[in-house]
């Protein structure tokens, strides 16, 4: 599958990446080449083959629903870009 600049812009929006207009053609070329590579998979008929999500086909292990981690809010706030009064600051969302 070959992707154009418009498709790159749409995927970039879904991925929340600000791709500059001047970089879009190069991304379109690279992405199309990568898709061409992965489409070699189509040479094989996989009808009825069970998809493999985990190398050991294991089920997700569950643990008791109990508090397992200590409260470390101050530590985590210390590495945040902008905080105030224990809150993480972002641009205004609701007018």
């Amino acid at each position, binding site marked *: 599958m070959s992707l154009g600049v418009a498709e790159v812009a749409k995927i970039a929006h879904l991925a929340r990446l600000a791709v500059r207009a001047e970089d879009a053609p190069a991304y379109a070329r690279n992405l199309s080449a990568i898709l061409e590579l992965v489409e070699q998979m189509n040479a094989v008929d996989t009808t009825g083959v069970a998809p493999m999500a985990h190398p*050991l086909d294991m089920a997700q292990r569950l643990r008791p629903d109990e508090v397992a981690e200590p409260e470390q809010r101050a530590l985590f706030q210390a590495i945040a870009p902008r905080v105030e009064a224990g809150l993480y600051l972002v641009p205004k969302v609701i007018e």
Partner: protein
Amino acid sequence: MNSPTPVALYQRTIAQLSAGLTAGEFSSEELTRALLDRIERNNPQLNAFITVTAEAALAQARAADQRRSQGHAGPLTGIPIAHKDIFCTQGVRTSCGSRMLDRFIAPYNATVVERLNAAGTVMLGKTNMDEFAMGSSNETSFYGPVRNPWDLNAVPGGSSGGSAAAIAARLTPGATGTDTGGSIRQPAALCGITGIKPTYGRVSRWGMIAYASSLDQGGPMARTAEDCALLLAAMAGFDPRDSTCVDQPVPDYVARLNQPLAGLKIGLPKEYFGEGLDSAVAAVVETAIAEYRRQGAETIEISLPNSQLAIPAYYVVAPAECSSNLARFDGVRYGHRCENPKDLLDLYTRSRAEGFGAEVQRRILVGTFALSAGYYDAYYLKAQQIRRLISDDFRRAFEQVDVIAGPTSPTVAFNLGEKVDDPITMYLSDIYTIAVNLAGLPGLSLPAGLVGQRPVGLQLIGNYFAEHRLLNVAHRYQQVTDWHNRIPTGF
């Protein structure tokens, strides 16, 4: 008393250093100082370390010496190592080779770091890597490329290129690495050292920054299989904090190193010796396999018929998982944040575009596309089905043979800049390593020779949880060859 000049400390393997510490020949503090000096002198030309933690290393070394004087020493007490900068280290910058995390001070230790700390190792610093482990040459690092000690114009491989180069240049006797598609084995091959990617689930991924969670696996890198055995013994084991970590006893890797090879069945996949393999690399690998026959092993030609589909399937599965994992970098709670965002969307999109490099953005875009409505079945589901076929190929092969052998990489190290503009050519560098990750099997690379001045790696692939066998098979080879003792000129 006339004793021969002792071998310089930096030339010694972990096993030799451990014996020296036990005999009281030197202290961990002396050893650590010697290595920190070497890093200071040699790192500027190699760029193998992103961060050197000299003061903390000396404090850890003194604590190790004290424990030893109190009679509480294990085999790794006081042994200096380096950690790939993908492992969270409390209070120390953990960048993952990215501008996104350039100022990220990890608030906790990865389980692997905790376990190695508990075993008494001393951390010299954090090693350079491809950004978020996405690369095969170490050229995608925000901190600049690492150079290969064997030839400063060559790449060290990637993504654990800093760890591999630091070991090859004798700046550290061992290091941690991670391997999602070959990132321990390929740089180990290109730098002439030994590295093992364990079975998926053998080593905890907790605190190891995620790239592709169903493929990522941490493992040790060192000069010899024996040293890898010592490190893996400390790293492996169940961790309730990683829901995919396997609760299974860890065998005594060191005790099983010397098992004789008579009767060992080695499978040689015909797909690993065909088109695309450099003929000089093939000759080195054939010579290594002949050595195994001399030791009593039997070689059997096998087929892994879906091998050529490994790269296509990987470049769907890995980007899909990466697009999901890297969604957490949003400029809000940690990591890079753009200046003056005008709204929330602008904050997300600019923080991410500024924080991630080109290769990371490419893989996020590919993964986002593959998972998007209308394309999921054709790409992601198809890739997971191919993954099953690849895994079944190995399952059938291991009914016939004990281990599989072949080249780690189709060529020796390529030149810096040679493949940087062509992602597809770069991807093909991992043609023999990627299938192992898709199947979740353990794989090891050991030095088997040189082409010109550039090393060649022999890859050994084992059945699930057969790390002890791979280490044993590699160790026996290293008892009768000296490729692992070769030192790059100038180091």
